[in-house]
């Protein structure tokens, strides 16, 4: 499924977060949106899944403008989505198995045995075994993200959104999650949109990269193109340089 944002503007009070933003996300590919923390990446993601409506402009999912849909229509469109939240957002009153089964129970009439089978399969797909009876609080951060991904995959979504999937993980777990994202995309053929400020991960997994800055996409293209961008903001971001010229040592 194709995602397209055109002329999207969003402000909270006086603070303009998205400013006439245009972006087309190619179907069946992994696109990573990079940008500074607090730069509006999460807000952009929430526009795509209809959690926030734009002040002006349109968000198209396969040529349907979701910014004008009512709640019921929006819910139908959302059934094509799976989303992995930054902290996984697992329901902490439910077991791992119940979490993964939740969207299946809500939207299908499958029997308990069939649902259990799908839950096992999805958990296996993200590399987890024998955790169905555990509570989310008993899991490590990396495992919680895997369960979050299994839940996101439960209804075989055509679009998968990842909100900073590697934030807060050690380098090994980060690599695990990167591999998992690539494997999931290959297995499902879904359109994957990742928001991240993790440059290493971005270049490892992305087919396309978009840089969000000052409410707009200031650079878009293949990882190679982004790596060799002449745009100073992009360059600084990739190299991890603050906009200030002063060296850190000068502060000491």
């Amino acid at each position, binding site marked *: 499924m194709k995602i397209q944002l055109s002329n999207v503007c969003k402000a909270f009070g006086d603070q303009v977060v998205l400013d006439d933003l245009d972006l087309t996300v190619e179907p069946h590919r992994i696109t990573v949106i990079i940008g500074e923390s607090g730069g509006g990446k999460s807000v952009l993601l*929430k526009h795509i*899944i*209809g*959690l926030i409506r734009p002040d002006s402009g349109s968000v198209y999912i396969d040529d349907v403008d979701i910014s004008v849909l009512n*709640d019921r229509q929006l*819910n*139908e469109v*959302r*059934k094509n*989505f*799976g*989303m992995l*939240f*930054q*902290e996984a*957002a*697992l*329901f*902490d*009153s439910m077991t791992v198995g119940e979490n993964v089964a*939740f*969207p299946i129970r*809500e*939207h299908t009439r499958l029997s308990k045995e069939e649902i259990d089978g799908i839950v096992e399969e999805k958990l296996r797909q993200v590399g987890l075994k024998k955790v169905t009876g555990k509570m989310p609080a008993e899991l490590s951060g990396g495992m919680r993200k895997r369960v979050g991904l299994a839940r996101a995959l439960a209804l075989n979504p055509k679009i998968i959104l990842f909100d900073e999937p590697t934030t807060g993980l050690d380098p090994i777990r980060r690599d695990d999650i990167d591999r998992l994202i690539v494997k999931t995309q290959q297995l499902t053929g879904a359109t994957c949109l990742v928001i991240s400020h993790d440059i290493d991960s971005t270049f490892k997994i992305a087919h396309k990269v978009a840089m969000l800055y000052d409410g707009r996409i200031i650079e878009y293209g293949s990882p190679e193109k982004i790596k060799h961008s002449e745009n100073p903001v992009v360059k600084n971001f990739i190299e991890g340089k603050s906009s200030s010229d002063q060296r850190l040592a000068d502060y000491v």
Partner: protein
Amino acid sequence: MVRLLEFAGKPFVLIIESFGKVSLLLAATLAWMIRPPYRIHEIFKQMEFVGVNSLPVVLITGAFTGMVLAIQTYYGFRMFGGESLVGATVALSMARELGPAITALMVTGRAGSAMAAELGTMRVTEQIDALYTMSVNPVQYLIMPRVVAGIVMLPILTIVSDFIGIVGGYFVGVGLLDINSGIFMARIVEFVHLSDIVNGLIKSAVFGLILSLVGCYKGFNTSGGAAGVGRATTQAVVISSVSILISDYFLTAVMF
């Protein structure tokens, strides 16, 4: 001058705004009560939490309220030889006023605060957003069952509180203060009418609506991490308790 007016008027604007938002949430909740799926399982789960789990605290507070009422009225009534009216006074006070009010305040502290804390935590950890992304309406899944549980369970808890209060009053009046058992009971039958009990139960249903709706509203609109959850919980308890006591006056004025 304009600034002064703005400053002075701001709290009123905020109160009216909040009142409007709570009313909209109530309308959405009522609409979801009659639209499928009906979430029977969730409703029963909340009824257990609000009702069954509040039973011990309601039993204890109800019993001691009835007992203290019996002592207080006994010493007052003894001055003019009206000890025989202690039973009726305890029963009437419990049925019309103290049963509904004390039960509602106790359940606010126990379940209303928990609703605000649980929904607030779900909000700040993005679990409510996760529900939206899974095409599940959080008002229908989280708020409607809690409000239904509040409206249904508060009258049931109030009946328990009324009964145990009278039992407590009997224990003190007849057991400790030597009032004649037959007279104690006869006065209750004579003075307490069905309408006293029913009106008390209607009040308690309204209190159940207030405490669950305010708890859910505060939790649902939490922002600002752990501190925000704490703030929402405190506000839910304070606003619910004050609203219950204010509405109690007006409901009583209309009903009795």
